[in-house]
Protein backbone atom coordinates (compact mmCIF):
# COMPACT_ATOMS: atom_id res chain seq x y z
CA UNK A 1 0.00 0.00 0.00
CA UNK A 2 1.40 3.39 -0.95
CA UNK A 3 1.59 6.24 1.50
CA UNK A 4 -1.39 8.47 0.89
CA UNK A 5 0.61 11.59 1.70
CA UNK A 6 4.11 11.68 0.35
CA UNK A 7 4.63 15.34 1.20
CA UNK A 8 5.36 16.76 4.62
CA UNK A 9 2.25 17.31 6.65
CA UNK A 10 1.25 20.69 7.95
CA UNK A 11 0.90 20.71 11.73
CA UNK A 12 -0.76 23.74 13.25
CA UNK A 13 -2.67 24.23 16.46
CA UNK A 14 -6.44 24.19 16.51
CA UNK A 15 -8.61 25.67 15.22
CA UNK A 16 -7.45 24.66 11.78
CA UNK A 17 -9.89 26.78 9.82
CA UNK A 18 -10.66 30.47 9.95
CA UNK A 19 -13.30 32.88 8.80
CA UNK A 20 -12.93 34.66 5.49
CA UNK A 21 -12.18 38.18 6.77
CA UNK A 22 -8.58 39.06 7.28
CA UNK A 23 -7.20 42.35 8.47
CA UNK A 24 -5.91 43.46 5.06
CA UNK A 25 -9.20 42.47 3.44
CA UNK A 26 -11.06 44.67 5.91
CA UNK A 27 -8.67 47.58 5.46
CA UNK A 28 -8.68 47.51 1.68
CA UNK A 29 -12.46 47.27 1.67
CA UNK A 30 -12.55 50.46 3.71
CA UNK A 31 -10.21 52.03 1.18
CA UNK A 32 -12.62 50.94 -1.52
CA UNK A 33 -15.55 52.43 0.34
CA UNK A 34 -13.67 55.71 0.55
CA UNK A 35 -13.26 55.97 -3.20
CA UNK A 36 -16.78 57.32 -3.81
CA UNK A 37 -16.26 59.85 -1.02
CA UNK A 38 -13.07 61.03 -2.68
CA UNK A 39 -14.86 61.17 -6.01
CA UNK A 40 -17.53 63.37 -4.45
CA UNK A 41 -14.85 65.64 -3.05
CA UNK A 42 -13.30 65.91 -6.49
CA UNK A 43 -16.72 66.69 -7.96
CA UNK A 44 -17.14 69.63 -5.60
CA UNK A 45 -13.60 70.91 -5.30
CA UNK A 46 -11.94 69.75 -8.51
CA UNK A 47 -8.37 68.68 -8.85
CA UNK A 48 -7.40 70.39 -5.58
CA UNK A 49 -9.19 67.67 -3.65
CA UNK A 50 -7.23 64.94 -5.37
CA UNK A 51 -3.94 66.73 -4.85
CA UNK A 52 -4.51 67.31 -1.14
CA UNK A 53 -5.56 63.71 -0.55
CA UNK A 54 -2.62 62.44 -2.58
CA UNK A 55 -0.27 64.53 -0.44
CA UNK A 56 -1.61 63.22 2.86
CA UNK A 57 -1.60 59.65 1.58
CA UNK A 58 1.97 60.05 0.36
CA UNK A 59 3.05 61.45 3.72
CA UNK A 60 1.39 58.60 5.56
CA UNK A 61 2.66 55.83 3.29
CA UNK A 62 6.22 57.12 3.12
CA UNK A 63 6.44 57.40 6.89
CA UNK A 64 5.03 53.91 7.33
CA UNK A 65 7.59 52.66 4.83
CA UNK A 66 10.61 54.45 6.24
CA UNK A 67 10.09 54.20 10.00
CA UNK A 68 7.70 51.26 10.28
CA UNK A 69 8.52 47.60 10.31
CA UNK A 70 8.91 46.24 6.82
CA UNK A 71 6.00 45.32 4.65
CA UNK A 72 3.28 46.96 6.69
CA UNK A 73 2.06 49.13 3.86
CA UNK A 74 0.34 46.11 2.36
CA UNK A 75 -2.08 45.85 5.29
CA UNK A 76 -3.77 48.99 4.01
CA UNK A 77 -4.21 50.78 7.31
CA UNK A 78 -1.73 53.54 6.52
CA UNK A 79 -3.59 54.14 3.28
CA UNK A 80 -6.82 54.65 5.21
CA UNK A 81 -5.10 57.06 7.55
CA UNK A 82 -3.74 59.06 4.62
CA UNK A 83 -7.04 59.20 2.77
CA UNK A 84 -9.10 60.09 5.82
CA UNK A 85 -6.66 62.77 6.89
CA UNK A 86 -6.89 64.29 3.42
CA UNK A 87 -10.67 64.24 3.61
CA UNK A 88 -10.62 66.31 6.80
CA UNK A 89 -8.62 69.14 5.25
CA UNK A 90 -9.83 72.12 3.25
CA UNK A 91 -9.40 71.96 -0.51
CA UNK A 92 -6.95 74.82 -0.48
CA UNK A 93 -4.47 73.37 1.98
CA UNK A 94 -0.88 73.82 0.89
CA UNK A 95 0.40 70.41 -0.10
CA UNK A 96 3.40 70.65 2.19
CA UNK A 97 1.10 70.99 5.17
CA UNK A 98 -1.00 68.04 4.03
CA UNK A 99 2.13 65.95 3.62
CA UNK A 100 3.41 66.99 7.03
CA UNK A 101 0.07 66.03 8.56
CA UNK A 102 0.38 62.54 7.10
CA UNK A 103 3.90 62.18 8.44
CA UNK A 104 2.87 63.39 11.87
CA UNK A 105 -0.27 61.28 12.06
CA UNK A 106 1.48 58.04 11.19
CA UNK A 107 4.66 58.89 13.07
CA UNK A 108 3.24 60.08 16.36
CA UNK A 109 -0.26 58.67 16.06
CA UNK A 110 0.75 55.15 15.20
CA UNK A 111 4.39 54.13 14.81
CA UNK A 112 5.71 55.30 18.20
CA UNK A 113 2.97 53.24 19.74
CA UNK A 114 4.20 50.15 17.97
CA UNK A 115 2.32 50.28 14.69
CA UNK A 116 -0.97 48.80 13.58
CA UNK A 117 -3.30 47.99 16.41
CA UNK A 118 -1.27 49.45 19.24
CA UNK A 119 -2.29 53.10 19.12
CA UNK A 120 -4.89 54.62 21.43
CA UNK A 121 -5.65 57.75 19.41
CA UNK A 122 -6.93 57.81 15.85
CA UNK A 123 -3.83 58.50 13.75
CA UNK A 124 -5.63 60.52 11.10
CA UNK A 125 -7.11 62.74 13.77
CA UNK A 126 -3.80 63.11 15.56
CA UNK A 127 -2.41 64.38 12.27
CA UNK A 128 -5.37 66.64 11.76
CA UNK A 129 -5.27 67.99 15.34
CA UNK A 130 -1.60 68.73 14.90
CA UNK A 131 -2.23 70.61 11.66
CA UNK A 132 -5.09 72.57 13.14
CA UNK A 133 -3.01 73.57 16.14
CA UNK A 134 0.08 74.32 14.07
CA UNK A 135 -1.55 76.22 11.22
CA UNK A 136 -4.93 77.31 12.55
CA UNK A 137 -5.47 79.89 9.84
CA UNK A 138 -4.61 77.80 6.82
CA UNK A 139 -6.51 74.78 8.12
CA UNK A 140 -9.67 76.76 8.73
CA UNK A 141 -9.74 78.65 5.44
CA UNK A 142 -12.54 77.03 3.49
CA UNK A 143 -12.66 77.45 -0.28
CA UNK A 144 -16.07 77.68 -1.92
CA UNK A 145 -17.10 74.55 -3.82
CA UNK A 146 -17.82 74.67 -7.54
CA UNK A 147 -15.90 76.19 -10.42
CA UNK A 148 -13.87 74.52 -13.10
CA UNK A 149 -12.27 71.17 -12.36
CA UNK A 150 -8.74 72.31 -13.06
CA UNK A 151 -8.86 75.55 -11.05
CA UNK A 152 -6.74 75.34 -7.91
CA UNK A 153 -8.65 76.23 -4.77
CA UNK A 154 -5.80 77.94 -2.99
CA UNK A 155 -2.05 78.21 -2.80
CA UNK A 156 -1.55 74.46 -2.98
CA UNK A 157 1.98 74.71 -4.23
CA UNK A 158 3.24 77.11 -1.59
CA UNK A 159 6.92 76.39 -1.04
CA UNK A 160 7.43 74.07 1.93
CA UNK A 161 7.40 75.87 5.29
CA UNK A 162 6.32 79.17 3.77
CA UNK A 163 3.08 80.98 4.34
CA UNK A 164 0.50 80.37 1.64
CA UNK A 165 -1.04 83.31 -0.20
CA UNK A 166 -4.67 83.53 0.74
CA UNK A 167 -6.46 85.05 -2.17
CA UNK A 168 -8.80 82.21 -3.14
CA UNK A 169 -12.53 82.69 -2.78
CA UNK A 170 -13.48 81.30 0.60
CA UNK A 171 -16.71 80.91 2.44
CA UNK A 172 -17.57 80.13 6.01
CA UNK A 173 -18.76 76.63 6.84
CA UNK A 174 -22.39 76.17 7.84
CA UNK A 175 -21.28 75.71 11.46
CA UNK A 176 -19.11 78.82 11.35
CA UNK A 177 -21.96 80.78 9.83
CA UNK A 178 -24.22 79.62 12.59
CA UNK A 179 -21.84 80.17 15.46
CA UNK A 180 -20.36 83.49 14.45
CA UNK A 181 -23.06 85.08 12.37
CA UNK A 182 -26.19 83.36 13.53
CA UNK A 183 -27.06 82.32 10.00
CA UNK A 184 -28.58 78.99 8.98
CA UNK A 185 -27.93 76.99 5.83
CA UNK A 186 -30.45 75.42 3.49
CA UNK A 187 -30.89 71.75 4.40
CA UNK A 188 -30.78 70.59 0.79
CA UNK A 189 -27.35 72.12 0.34
CA UNK A 190 -26.21 70.45 3.52
CA UNK A 191 -27.39 67.02 2.46
CA UNK A 192 -26.01 67.28 -1.05
CA UNK A 193 -22.82 68.75 0.28
CA UNK A 194 -22.83 72.01 -1.65
CA UNK A 195 -21.30 74.00 1.21
CA UNK A 196 -17.96 75.25 2.34
CA UNK A 197 -16.01 72.83 4.46
CA UNK A 198 -13.41 70.12 4.40
CA UNK A 199 -13.21 67.71 1.49
CA UNK A 200 -15.06 64.94 3.27
CA UNK A 201 -17.79 66.85 5.03
CA UNK A 202 -19.61 67.67 1.87
CA UNK A 203 -21.00 64.31 0.86
CA UNK A 204 -23.20 63.00 3.64
CA UNK A 205 -25.19 60.63 1.44
CA UNK A 206 -22.15 59.08 -0.20
CA UNK A 207 -20.58 58.58 3.22
CA UNK A 208 -23.72 56.94 4.54
CA UNK A 209 -23.85 54.59 1.58
CA UNK A 210 -20.22 53.58 2.10
CA UNK A 211 -20.92 53.08 5.79
CA UNK A 212 -23.94 50.92 5.07
CA UNK A 213 -21.85 48.73 2.78
CA UNK A 214 -19.13 48.32 5.40
CA UNK A 215 -21.67 47.68 8.15
CA UNK A 216 -23.35 45.05 6.00
CA UNK A 217 -20.02 43.34 5.46
CA UNK A 218 -19.40 43.72 9.22
CA UNK A 219 -16.18 45.60 8.55
CA UNK A 220 -17.38 48.34 10.82
CA UNK A 221 -19.59 48.01 13.84
CA UNK A 222 -22.91 49.70 13.16
CA UNK A 223 -23.44 50.42 16.83
CA UNK A 224 -20.92 53.25 16.90
CA UNK A 225 -22.36 55.41 14.11
CA UNK A 226 -25.87 54.55 15.26
CA UNK A 227 -25.07 55.64 18.78
CA UNK A 228 -23.34 58.85 17.71
CA UNK A 229 -26.03 59.96 15.28
CA UNK A 230 -28.81 59.03 17.67
CA UNK A 231 -27.25 60.92 20.56
CA UNK A 232 -26.62 64.00 18.47
CA UNK A 233 -30.16 63.91 17.13
CA UNK A 234 -31.80 63.50 20.52
CA UNK A 235 -29.56 65.92 22.40
CA UNK A 236 -29.80 68.68 19.82
CA UNK A 237 -33.55 68.24 19.52
CA UNK A 238 -33.88 68.75 23.26
CA UNK A 239 -31.75 71.87 23.11
CA UNK A 240 -33.65 73.13 20.09
CA UNK A 241 -36.92 72.68 21.94
CA UNK A 242 -35.64 74.58 24.96
CA UNK A 243 -34.10 77.37 22.90
CA UNK A 244 -35.37 77.70 19.35
CA UNK A 245 -32.36 79.75 18.27
CA UNK A 246 -30.25 76.63 18.60
CA UNK A 247 -29.99 74.48 15.47
CA UNK A 248 -32.29 71.51 14.99
CA UNK A 249 -31.27 67.89 14.70
CA UNK A 250 -31.16 67.76 10.89
CA UNK A 251 -28.78 70.68 10.72
CA UNK A 252 -26.60 69.11 13.38
CA UNK A 253 -26.51 65.74 11.65
CA UNK A 254 -25.70 66.95 8.18
CA UNK A 255 -23.31 69.79 8.93
CA UNK A 256 -19.60 69.60 9.54
CA UNK A 257 -17.59 66.45 9.75
CA UNK A 258 -20.11 64.50 11.79
CA UNK A 259 -20.96 61.95 9.09
CA UNK A 260 -17.36 61.31 8.10
CA UNK A 261 -16.34 61.09 11.74
CA UNK A 262 -19.19 58.87 12.82
CA UNK A 263 -18.94 56.45 9.92
CA UNK A 264 -15.25 56.24 9.12
CA UNK A 265 -13.29 57.60 12.07
CA UNK A 266 -15.07 56.72 15.29
CA UNK A 267 -15.42 53.21 13.90
CA UNK A 268 -11.69 52.58 13.68
CA UNK A 269 -11.68 49.39 15.72
CA UNK A 270 -8.17 49.97 16.98
CA UNK A 271 -9.22 53.11 18.77
CA UNK A 272 -12.76 52.20 19.80
CA UNK A 273 -14.00 49.84 22.52
CA UNK A 274 -14.05 46.08 22.00
CA UNK A 275 -17.36 45.44 23.74
CA UNK A 276 -20.76 46.25 22.31
CA UNK A 277 -21.90 47.98 25.46
CA UNK A 278 -18.70 49.97 25.35
CA UNK A 279 -19.39 50.94 21.75
CA UNK A 280 -22.78 52.37 22.65
CA UNK A 281 -21.19 54.36 25.46
CA UNK A 282 -18.34 55.51 23.25
CA UNK A 283 -20.74 56.71 20.59
CA UNK A 284 -22.95 58.45 23.10
CA UNK A 285 -19.93 60.20 24.58
CA UNK A 286 -18.88 61.44 21.16
CA UNK A 287 -22.40 62.59 20.40
CA UNK A 288 -22.68 64.58 23.62
CA UNK A 289 -19.25 66.16 23.22
CA UNK A 290 -19.95 67.13 19.62
CA UNK A 291 -23.11 68.97 20.62
CA UNK A 292 -21.51 70.55 23.67
CA UNK A 293 -18.51 71.84 21.75
CA UNK A 294 -20.60 73.03 18.83
CA UNK A 295 -23.07 74.88 21.02
CA UNK A 296 -21.08 76.07 24.03
CA UNK A 297 -17.47 75.72 22.94
CA UNK A 298 -15.24 78.26 21.31
CA UNK A 299 -14.77 76.28 18.13
CA UNK A 300 -17.45 75.91 15.50
CA UNK A 301 -16.81 72.18 15.05
CA UNK A 302 -15.96 69.55 17.64
CA UNK A 303 -16.10 66.12 15.96
CA UNK A 304 -12.35 65.70 15.86
CA UNK A 305 -11.82 66.65 19.49
CA UNK A 306 -14.82 64.62 20.61
CA UNK A 307 -13.41 61.49 18.98
CA UNK A 308 -9.91 62.10 20.31
CA UNK A 309 -11.25 62.67 23.81
CA UNK A 310 -13.30 59.50 23.73
CA UNK A 311 -10.31 57.62 22.28
CA UNK A 312 -8.52 58.49 25.50
CA UNK A 313 -11.38 56.97 27.47
CA UNK A 314 -11.44 53.70 25.52
CA UNK A 315 -9.14 51.72 27.84
CA UNK A 316 -11.41 52.84 30.64
CA UNK A 317 -14.59 51.89 28.82
CA UNK A 318 -13.16 48.50 27.94
CA UNK A 319 -12.43 47.84 31.57
CA UNK A 320 -15.82 49.00 32.73
CA UNK A 321 -17.84 47.04 30.18
CA UNK A 322 -15.98 43.77 30.41
CA UNK A 323 -18.68 41.12 29.89
CA UNK A 324 -19.69 38.90 32.78
CA UNK A 325 -17.86 35.62 32.40
CA UNK A 326 -20.09 32.60 31.86
CA UNK A 327 -21.01 30.99 35.13
CA UNK A 328 -19.97 33.85 37.40
CA UNK A 329 -23.18 35.84 37.72
CA UNK A 330 -26.56 35.69 39.36
CA UNK A 331 -27.94 33.16 36.91
CA UNK A 332 -25.06 30.85 37.64
CA UNK A 333 -26.28 30.39 41.18
CA UNK A 334 -29.73 29.31 40.01
Amino acid at each position, binding site marked *: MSTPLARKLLVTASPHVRSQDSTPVIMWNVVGALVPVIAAAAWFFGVSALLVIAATALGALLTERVIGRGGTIADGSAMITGLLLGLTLPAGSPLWMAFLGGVFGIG*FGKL*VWGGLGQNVFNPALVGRA*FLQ*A*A*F*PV*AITTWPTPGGAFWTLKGDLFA*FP*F*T*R*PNTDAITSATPLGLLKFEGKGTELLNLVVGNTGGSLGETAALVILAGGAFLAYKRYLNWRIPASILLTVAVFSTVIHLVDARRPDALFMLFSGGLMLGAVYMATDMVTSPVTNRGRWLFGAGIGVLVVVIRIWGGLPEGVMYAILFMNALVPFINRATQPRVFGTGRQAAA
Partner: protein
Amino acid sequence: MTAVPSVQPVQPAGASAFVPGSPPPATLAADIWRGIARENPVLVQFLGMCPTMAVTNTLANGIAMGVATLFVLVGSGLIVSLFRKYIAHEVRITSYILIIATFVTLADMILAATFPAISKALGPFMPLNVANGLLLGRAEAFAAKVGPVRAVADGFGMGMGFTLSLVLLSATRELLGGGSLLNQDILGPRFEPWVFMVMPPGGFLTLGIALLGLAFIIERRRRRTQEAA
Protein backbone atom coordinates in the same frame (compact mmCIF):
# COMPACT_ATOMS: atom_id res chain seq x y z
CA MET B 1 16.20 52.92 67.92
CA THR B 2 18.90 50.29 68.22
CA ALA B 3 22.28 51.45 69.38
CA VAL B 4 24.80 52.20 66.74
CA PRO B 5 27.21 49.31 66.40
CA SER B 6 30.35 50.20 68.25
CA VAL B 7 32.58 48.95 65.49
CA GLN B 8 32.73 51.95 63.19
CA PRO B 9 34.54 51.64 59.90
CA VAL B 10 37.98 53.06 60.56
CA GLN B 11 38.60 56.20 58.58
CA PRO B 12 42.05 56.49 57.09
CA ALA B 13 43.59 59.43 58.88
CA GLY B 14 43.84 62.56 56.83
CA ALA B 15 41.59 61.30 54.07
CA SER B 16 38.42 63.25 53.55
CA ALA B 17 35.83 61.78 55.89
CA PHE B 18 33.78 59.45 53.80
CA VAL B 19 30.42 58.84 55.41
CA PRO B 20 28.65 55.70 54.30
CA GLY B 21 25.56 56.63 52.30
CA SER B 22 27.10 59.81 50.96
CA PRO B 23 28.13 60.22 47.36
CA PRO B 24 31.41 58.54 46.48
CA PRO B 25 34.40 60.85 46.16
CA ALA B 26 34.85 62.39 42.75
CA THR B 27 36.71 65.19 41.09
CA LEU B 28 35.04 68.56 40.84
CA ALA B 29 34.82 68.21 37.10
CA ALA B 30 33.01 64.92 37.53
CA ASP B 31 30.64 66.55 40.02
CA ILE B 32 29.79 69.21 37.46
CA TRP B 33 29.64 66.94 34.44
CA ARG B 34 27.32 64.49 36.16
CA GLY B 35 24.52 67.03 36.28
CA ILE B 36 24.98 68.02 32.69
CA ALA B 37 25.07 64.58 31.16
CA ARG B 38 24.51 61.30 32.91
CA GLU B 39 22.13 62.61 35.55
CA ASN B 40 20.63 65.43 33.57
CA PRO B 41 17.68 66.62 35.64
CA VAL B 42 15.27 67.04 32.74
CA LEU B 43 16.26 64.48 30.14
CA VAL B 44 17.26 61.68 32.49
CA GLN B 45 15.70 62.27 35.91
CA PHE B 46 12.45 63.92 34.77
CA LEU B 47 12.56 66.34 37.66
CA GLY B 48 11.10 69.80 37.59
CA MET B 49 8.82 68.89 34.71
CA CYS B 50 6.33 71.65 35.38
CA PRO B 51 8.67 74.63 34.97
CA THR B 52 10.31 72.81 32.08
CA MET B 53 7.06 72.51 30.17
CA ALA B 54 5.48 75.76 31.24
CA VAL B 55 8.24 78.23 30.45
CA THR B 56 9.95 76.81 27.41
CA ASN B 57 7.69 78.46 24.89
CA THR B 58 10.29 81.17 24.31
CA LEU B 59 14.05 81.03 24.58
CA ALA B 60 14.23 84.08 26.86
CA ASN B 61 11.89 82.46 29.37
CA GLY B 62 13.82 79.24 29.21
CA ILE B 63 17.13 80.93 29.85
CA ALA B 64 15.72 83.03 32.68
CA MET B 65 14.20 80.02 34.39
CA GLY B 66 17.35 77.99 33.87
CA VAL B 67 19.66 80.64 35.27
CA ALA B 68 17.37 81.34 38.20
CA THR B 69 17.29 77.66 39.03
CA LEU B 70 21.06 77.48 38.75
CA PHE B 71 21.29 80.36 41.20
CA VAL B 72 18.97 78.64 43.65
CA LEU B 73 20.80 75.32 43.31
CA VAL B 74 24.18 76.85 43.96
CA GLY B 75 22.97 79.10 46.76
CA SER B 76 20.90 76.52 48.60
CA GLY B 77 23.58 73.88 48.05
CA LEU B 78 26.16 76.14 49.63
CA ILE B 79 24.03 77.02 52.65
CA VAL B 80 22.80 73.49 53.21
CA SER B 81 26.32 72.17 53.02
CA LEU B 82 27.71 74.85 55.34
CA PHE B 83 25.11 74.23 57.99
CA ARG B 84 24.78 70.49 57.48
CA LYS B 85 26.31 69.71 60.85
CA TYR B 86 23.92 71.99 62.72
CA ILE B 87 20.65 71.04 61.10
CA ALA B 88 19.02 68.38 63.23
CA HIS B 89 17.94 65.30 61.38
CA GLU B 90 14.30 65.65 62.36
CA VAL B 91 13.82 69.12 60.91
CA ARG B 92 16.14 68.90 57.98
CA ILE B 93 13.44 68.69 55.29
CA THR B 94 11.65 71.71 56.68
CA SER B 95 14.92 73.58 56.91
CA TYR B 96 15.88 72.70 53.34
CA ILE B 97 12.50 73.86 52.10
CA LEU B 98 12.93 77.09 53.99
CA ILE B 99 16.37 77.66 52.52
CA ILE B 100 15.20 76.83 49.02
CA ALA B 101 12.12 79.02 49.33
CA THR B 102 14.32 81.88 50.46
CA PHE B 103 16.58 81.62 47.44
CA VAL B 104 13.65 81.22 45.10
CA THR B 105 12.06 84.33 46.50
CA LEU B 106 15.32 86.19 46.10
CA ALA B 107 15.65 85.04 42.51
CA ASP B 108 12.08 86.04 41.85
CA MET B 109 12.56 89.53 43.23
CA ILE B 110 15.84 90.09 41.46
CA LEU B 111 14.34 88.97 38.16
CA ALA B 112 11.36 91.26 38.69
CA ALA B 113 13.70 94.17 39.27
CA THR B 114 16.01 93.47 36.37
CA PHE B 115 13.93 91.83 33.65
CA PRO B 116 10.37 92.79 34.52
CA ALA B 117 8.91 91.63 31.21
CA ILE B 118 10.34 88.13 31.55
CA SER B 119 9.29 88.03 35.17
CA LYS B 120 5.76 88.82 34.12
CA ALA B 121 5.81 86.17 31.40
CA LEU B 122 6.98 83.50 33.84
CA GLY B 123 4.23 84.47 36.26
CA PRO B 124 3.79 82.10 39.17
CA PHE B 125 6.14 79.56 37.63
CA MET B 126 9.15 81.34 39.10
CA PRO B 127 8.01 81.01 42.73
CA LEU B 128 6.63 77.57 41.86
CA ASN B 129 10.19 76.43 41.48
CA VAL B 130 10.17 75.91 45.25
CA ALA B 131 8.26 72.74 44.65
CA ASN B 132 10.72 71.61 42.01
CA GLY B 133 11.77 68.17 43.16
CA LEU B 134 15.25 68.79 41.78
CA LEU B 135 16.05 71.41 44.41
CA LEU B 136 14.99 69.45 47.46
CA GLY B 137 16.48 66.33 45.91
CA ARG B 138 19.96 67.83 45.56
CA ALA B 139 19.85 69.35 49.03
CA GLU B 140 18.87 66.07 50.61
CA ALA B 141 20.89 63.67 48.52
CA PHE B 142 24.05 65.64 47.93
CA ALA B 143 24.58 69.00 49.59
CA ALA B 144 23.71 67.69 53.04
CA LYS B 145 26.42 65.08 52.80
CA VAL B 146 29.44 66.81 51.27
CA GLY B 147 31.53 69.89 51.80
CA PRO B 148 30.58 73.30 50.42
CA VAL B 149 32.91 73.15 47.43
CA ARG B 150 31.52 69.92 46.13
CA ALA B 151 27.98 71.06 46.94
CA VAL B 152 28.46 74.18 44.86
CA ALA B 153 30.01 72.19 42.03
CA ASP B 154 27.12 69.79 42.05
CA GLY B 155 24.60 72.62 42.16
CA PHE B 156 26.38 74.28 39.29
CA GLY B 157 26.43 71.10 37.24
CA MET B 158 22.78 70.35 37.87
CA GLY B 159 21.89 73.97 37.18
CA MET B 160 23.80 73.87 33.93
CA GLY B 161 22.16 70.61 32.98
CA PHE B 162 18.77 72.11 33.72
CA THR B 163 19.56 75.33 31.86
CA LEU B 164 20.95 73.54 28.81
CA SER B 165 17.91 71.31 28.60
CA LEU B 166 15.61 74.29 28.86
CA VAL B 167 17.62 76.11 26.21
CA LEU B 168 17.38 73.14 23.88
CA LEU B 169 13.64 72.83 24.35
CA SER B 170 12.81 76.51 24.31
CA ALA B 171 15.01 77.24 21.31
CA THR B 172 13.28 74.49 19.34
CA ARG B 173 9.87 75.66 20.37
CA GLU B 174 10.46 79.33 19.68
CA LEU B 175 12.20 78.70 16.39
CA LEU B 176 9.48 76.48 14.96
CA GLY B 177 6.64 78.16 16.77
CA GLY B 178 7.50 81.70 15.84
CA GLY B 179 10.40 81.58 13.42
CA SER B 180 12.46 83.58 15.86
CA LEU B 181 15.01 83.26 18.66
CA LEU B 182 15.08 85.71 21.56
CA ASN B 183 12.41 87.60 19.66
CA GLN B 184 14.78 88.11 16.71
CA ASP B 185 13.32 86.94 13.42
CA ILE B 186 15.45 84.06 12.15
CA LEU B 187 13.49 82.19 9.53
CA GLY B 188 12.29 85.19 7.59
CA PRO B 189 8.89 86.71 6.96
CA ARG B 190 7.73 83.99 4.57
CA PHE B 191 8.05 81.28 7.24
CA GLU B 192 4.72 79.91 8.41
CA PRO B 193 5.09 79.44 12.16
CA TRP B 194 3.94 76.18 13.75
CA VAL B 195 1.75 77.64 16.45
CA PHE B 196 1.42 74.11 17.82
CA MET B 197 4.93 74.25 19.17
CA VAL B 198 4.27 77.07 21.62
CA MET B 199 1.01 75.53 22.79
CA PRO B 200 0.83 72.96 25.60
CA PRO B 201 0.80 69.83 23.41
CA GLY B 202 3.83 71.17 21.58
CA GLY B 203 5.67 71.38 24.89
CA PHE B 204 5.04 67.74 25.67
CA LEU B 205 5.89 66.72 22.16
CA THR B 206 9.16 68.62 22.01
CA LEU B 207 10.38 66.92 25.16
CA GLY B 208 9.07 63.64 23.79
CA ILE B 209 11.04 64.06 20.60
CA ALA B 210 14.14 64.99 22.57
CA LEU B 211 13.78 61.83 24.64
CA LEU B 212 13.15 59.70 21.56
CA GLY B 213 16.27 61.13 19.95
CA LEU B 214 18.32 60.53 23.07
CA ALA B 215 17.04 56.97 23.38
CA PHE B 216 17.79 56.41 19.70
CA ILE B 217 21.39 57.51 20.13
CA ILE B 218 21.86 55.43 23.26
CA GLU B 219 20.27 52.42 21.60
CA ARG B 220 22.47 52.76 18.55
CA ARG B 221 25.56 53.02 20.68
CA ARG B 222 24.49 49.95 22.64
CA ARG B 223 24.00 48.01 19.42
CA ARG B 224 27.39 49.07 18.17
CA THR B 225 29.20 47.97 21.30
CA GLN B 226 27.22 44.76 21.23
CA GLU B 227 28.25 44.09 17.67
CA ALA B 228 31.83 44.95 18.47
CA ALA B 229 31.84 42.55 21.41
